[in-house]
């Protein structure tokens, strides 16, 4: 292709206090091209995109759009230049309608007066174009995360952008919704849109991208066409070494006694959930976005409790009405949305790791006594290989992987029996992923159990000893280790009744 690149960034550098985020990075994207950027967290992907989106100003380097030099000082200018960004974190207004959200910042107005009818019509048309059956008049807060993601996409399309930046657009989506999205991307490519695609999901990247660029430590490693970049190459370039043993090997011995048994668990989002978790076992839970797998996690940790059925821990019936009760019973929770539900961002790494211990001990406990002592928790954090210059630093400054490890330390310190992981590696780079999988395996091998709920099917297949599949609030079946993605999808779509049903072991 010899077309003029619709986007060309050359020699982009950006430094933050103490960190060289980008160092002379070149990047270009042709019209009708999907160009993926891969790299570990901290490699500089987001910074590069924030510069493109006008949120940051580069220290050095130039940006050309269709050959013309541009300089952005506010996201608005980038938007006006035809750059649309779909952000990793949803930026919607929950109390406003879908139409209001799609037109946020770009309302159709004449002399400052909104033309609501026109906006509704165009919103409906846009939603139609991406195949989303969403009423433009619906409140965003009434939509599922997946539908909200589609609203985000509609928002970006509104611009008729020539350049579309998608930063982990499938992070919140399940397999089916992800496929819809990838089809959409394909369609946009056909319309001549340049798409910058950022994702940690390798299969997705190799399926959709025309070219792939690898960033590491703020520098570009290489840019290659898709065919010249097999996954193993990509991973090696990102991590700087081979990652052959990505998933830990399965346990040598069979699972032990039943740790927790749920019988007939029911609430507004769940029906008749019956399963158990044995000592030494990692149980995966798969399902589409609205299958109830999130509700299952919330019920297990007492956040949105079961209203019917029984939960027994080591044979004893227990109540799980609040997260505190679940914690006391030995069930720990690693939420999918780390920033909103997992971390106190302005507190230190150490404080976050100690949060549960401190919460469950008596209120008059001395803060430095026994397991609460800084030295003890620091040792645990080091053992988990949480990388921070100092465990007294605010956890908000750490990478996602290190944050996730700190939360794991929180529950290890509490000596929980069962850990409920939701999307344990969402937005986490590959090296940290491997470490987290390893920790999960070791945790289970020590005679404890894990329930891992994930939308990342290769992950479930790789880590779980068996996978429960949910469909419309029910368990539609279970598959043993070694099952294929197709088997799981079949159950998740409700197409088969318990093909691989098995009784607990």
């Amino acid at each position, binding site marked *: 292709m010899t077309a003029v690149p619709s986007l060309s960034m050359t020699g982009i550098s950006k430094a*933050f*206090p*103490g*960190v*060289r*985020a980008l160092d002379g990075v070149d990047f270009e994207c042709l019209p009708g091209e999907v160009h993926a950027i891969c790299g570990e967290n*901290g490699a*500089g992907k987001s*910074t590069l995109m924030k510069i493109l989106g006008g949120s940051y100003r580069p220290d050095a380097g130039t940006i050309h759009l269709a050959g013309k030099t541009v300089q952005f000082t506010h996201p608005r200018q980038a938007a006006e230049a035809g750059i649309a960004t779909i952000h990793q974190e949803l930026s919607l207004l929950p109390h406003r309608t879908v139409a209001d959200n799609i037109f946020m910042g770009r309302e159709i107005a004449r002399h400052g007066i909104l033309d609501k009818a026109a906006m509704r019509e165009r919103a409906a048309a846009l939603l139609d174009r991406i195949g989303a059956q969403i009423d433009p008049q619906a409140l965003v807060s009434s939509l599922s995360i997946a539908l909200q993601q589609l609203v985000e996409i509609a928002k970006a399309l509104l611009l008729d952008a020539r350049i579309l930046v998608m930063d982990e657009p499938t992070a919140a989506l399940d397999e089916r919704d992800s496929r819809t999205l990838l089809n959409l991307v394909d369609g946009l490519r056909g319309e001549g849109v340049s798409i910058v695609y950022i994702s940690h999901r390798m299969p997705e990247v190799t399926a959709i991208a025309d070219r792939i660029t690898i960033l590491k*430590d*703020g520098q570009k490693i290489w840019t290659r066409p898709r065919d010249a970049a097999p996954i193993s190459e990509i991973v090696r370039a990102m991590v700087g070494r081979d990652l052959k043993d990505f998933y830990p090997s399965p346990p040598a011995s069979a699972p032990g006694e039943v740790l927790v048994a749920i019988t007939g668990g029911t609430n507004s989002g769940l029906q008749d959930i019956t399963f158990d978790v044995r000592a030494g076992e990692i149980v995966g839970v798969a399902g589409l976005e609205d299958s109830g797998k999130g509700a299952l996690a919330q019920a297990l*940790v007492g*956040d949105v409790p079961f209203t019917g059925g029984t939960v027994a821990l080591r044979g004893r019936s227990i109540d799980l009405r609040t*997260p*505190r009760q*679940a*914690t*006391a019973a030995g069930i720990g*929770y690693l*939420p999918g949305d780390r920033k*909103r*539900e*997992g*971390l*106190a*961002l*302005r*507190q230190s790494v150490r*404080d*976050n790791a*100690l*949060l*549960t211990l*401190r*919460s*469950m*001990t008596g*209120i*008059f*406990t*001395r*803060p430095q006594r026994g397991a*609460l002592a800084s030295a003890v928790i620091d040792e645990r954090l080091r053992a988990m290989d949480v*990388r*921070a*210059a*100092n465990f*007294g*630093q*605010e956890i908000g*400054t*750490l*990478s996602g992987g290190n944050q996730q490890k700190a939360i794991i330390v*929180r529950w290890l310190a*509490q000596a929980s029996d069962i850990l409920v992981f939701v999307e344990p590696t969402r937005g986490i780079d590959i090296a940290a992923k491997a470490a987290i999988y390893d920790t999960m395996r070791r945790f289970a091998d020590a005679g404890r159990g894990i329930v891992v709920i994930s939308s990342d099917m290769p992950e479930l297949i790789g880590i779980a000893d068996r996978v429960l599949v949910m469909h419309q609030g029910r368990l539609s079946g279970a598959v043993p280790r070694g099952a294929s993605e197709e088997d799981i999808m079949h159950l998740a779509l409700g197409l088969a009744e318990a093909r691989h049903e098995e009784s607990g072991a």
Partner: protein
Amino acid sequence: MTTVPQTSLSLRRPERLALNAGLVIFVALYAAIAFLQPNYLELGLFMNFLRRAAPLVILACGQLYVILTGGFDLSMGAVATLVVLAASILINGDPDTTWAVIGALYAMGIAVGLVNGLVVTFLKVPSIITTLGTMLLVNGLALAWSGGAARGDLPDNFRNLGRLVWRDVPVIGTLPLAAVVLAGFVALVWFGLNGTVYGKRALAVGDNPRAAELAGTPVAATRILAFVVSAVSAVTAGILIGGFSGVSVNAGEGLELQAIAACVIGGAQLLGGRGSIWSAVFGALSLFALFTLLNLLGLPQALRDSIQGLILIAAVGASTWRIRRRT
């Protein structure tokens, strides 16, 4: 972004700065006072300064608990007023009942704190509205009970708490009882935040209540306790105010905003997650030193408000700027 060792240094600094900000402002203001009026360097006058600042410092400490957990307590001033009026009515001139009445006052304070905490946590009414409501309610109750004016005098044993000054104390010369109460109270609230796990729970709850809840923190109890501590500190301050100057219907007027301002000047962050007991202590001392300085300067009364406003904005602006600079 890769973490480079330097960042950790710059990240650790704010903690120390938060402590120092209030202290620095206080030392600067007190130095200015001493420059204008050198005898303020005498221990006796410093003790007297502490005696008078004691109620505000105590209120700020209580307010800090609530601020750490992410809320506000606007009802403190009303509680202090209630305490003064209720004490005069209940003691009714009989010094023998003083200690029993003080117990009853704390019970009332705890009741107000519980109401605040329960309404905020279970009825989900934002604390600024809840405590505005209880402020009106408690103030109204106090006035209705007393009929709108002081109903009796306080006996000397009650007054002594805020008024008594021991003279000829070895080493320090004079020692006001209020300063002892202050030291004791600060030690207690310091212990609450630093000597038990409560302080860290409160910070986590103020920072991210949802995350804290999912990590097993008793969020409601943590919040409620903060309001109770705040109310208890308002009772203590009320007792000192009543002791210092006697009964009046406006004993606590406006103290809640001063307490919030004090915490903020000392470096605590509104809406939670940042601050230490020293933010409250030195913030309050700074604010009180400012009042004293403005008195000494003999500026027109009205302008003192203006200057207080400017200082408030400047102090918060400076700490905002510090936080911004490192992110």
